C-alpha cells in the first residue's frame, strides 16, 4: 500500500493535540525529522511536532515559508475552507461540533425530528411490505 499523504510544503494538516486543537494549518517548512514550521491565517507562524498533526488530502501551492499575505492568497486560490467543509472528514467534524454545542431545547427539537423521520421511514417500509405481500 503506497502512501498517499506526504509531509510537504503546502500540505494542510489538522492539529489533533494541544492548544490549537481542531485547527487547520499549512506545513510551511520542515525543521527536522520530527517538527514542522506551521502557519495558519489566524496564528503566528510556529513550530509543531508531527505527533500533533494529522495530514489531510488537501495541498496548496506555495513556496518555502511564504509571508502571511501570500499564504492567505494561496489558501483562497485553492479554496481550502470549502474543500474541507465539503469533505466527509470535515463534515463529520462540523456535525460533532454542532452536537456538542446543543442546549436542552435543541436536543428536544432533535428528538422530535428523529421521531418524525422514523415515522416516515416506517410508513414507507409498511407500504413496501404491503406491495410484496
Amino acid at each position, binding site marked *: 500500500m503506497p*502512501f498517499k499523504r506526504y509531509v510537504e510544503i503546502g500540505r494542510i494538516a489538522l492539529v489533533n493535540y494541544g492548544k490549537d486543537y481542531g485547527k487547520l494549518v499549512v506545513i510551511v517548512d520542515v525543521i527536522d525529522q520530527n517538527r514542522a514550521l506551521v502557519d495558519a491565517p489566524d496564528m503566528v507562524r510556529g513550530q509543531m511536532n508531527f505527533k500533533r498533526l494529522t495530514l489531510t488530502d488537501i495541498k496548496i501551492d506555495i513556496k518555502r515559508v511564504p509571508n502571511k499575505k501570500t499564504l492567505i492568497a494561496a489558501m483562497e486560490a485553492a479554496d481550502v475552507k470549502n474543500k474541507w467543509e465539503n469533505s466527509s472528514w470535515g463534515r463529520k467534524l462540523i456535525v460533532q461540533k454542532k452536537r456538542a454545542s446543543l442546549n436542552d431545547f435543541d436536543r428536544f427539537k432533535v428528538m422530535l425530528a428523529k421521531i418524525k423521520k422514523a415515522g416516515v421511514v416506517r410508513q414507507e417500509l409498511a407500504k413496501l411490505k404491503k406491495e410484496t405481500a
Partner: protein
Amino acid sequence: MSYKYHQFQVVGRGLPTESDENPKIYRMKLWATNEVRAKSKFWYYLRKLKKVKKSNGQMLAINEIFEKNPTTIKNYGIWLRYQSRTGYHNMYKEYRDTTLNGAVEQMYTEMASRHRVRHHCIQVIKTATIPAKLCKRESTKQFHNSKIKFPLVFKKVRPPTRKLKTTYKASRPNLFV
C-alpha cells in the same frame, strides 16, 4: 514554547582599586536556566580568564537575550568542550531549529543521551548561525531541500487531551497513517 535554557548577556568587572581606577569591563553571553545561575557561571569563566573573583568584582548588568526571528528556521552550529569519563574533548554539533535557545536545549539533551554527559560537564565555546551551504553534517543537510517530501510512516493516534487517556483499550490501534 518555553525553553529550559535562556541566553543571558552578563557584564561585570573587578572592583576599582587605588592602583586601577577603571578596571576593564568584561561581557559574556552564556546559557543558564535562570539569572542567578548565569551570574555564577559568569564568575566561573571570568576566574579562569582573569585574576578576578566574585568577592573582588562587581556585576554591572545582566540581560536576557531573546531570539530575533523565532519564526524562521536556521541551522545552528555549536562548538562545545565537554568532560567525558576519560578527559576533555571538543566537539562541533549542528542543529536545525527556529531559535538559538531551542538549539542549545537540543544540544544538552543530545549530549546527555548520546555521550552520557551531564549539563555541568559541558561548556559552550561558541554558537553561530550557519548558512545552508556551509553545513557539515548530513543529518542537517538532508533537510536543505525546497521540495522536501516524505510520508509519516508510523502514526499512533493519541487522545486529544491527557484527561481522556486510559490504561486499557478495547481494540488494538491502527498505526497506518
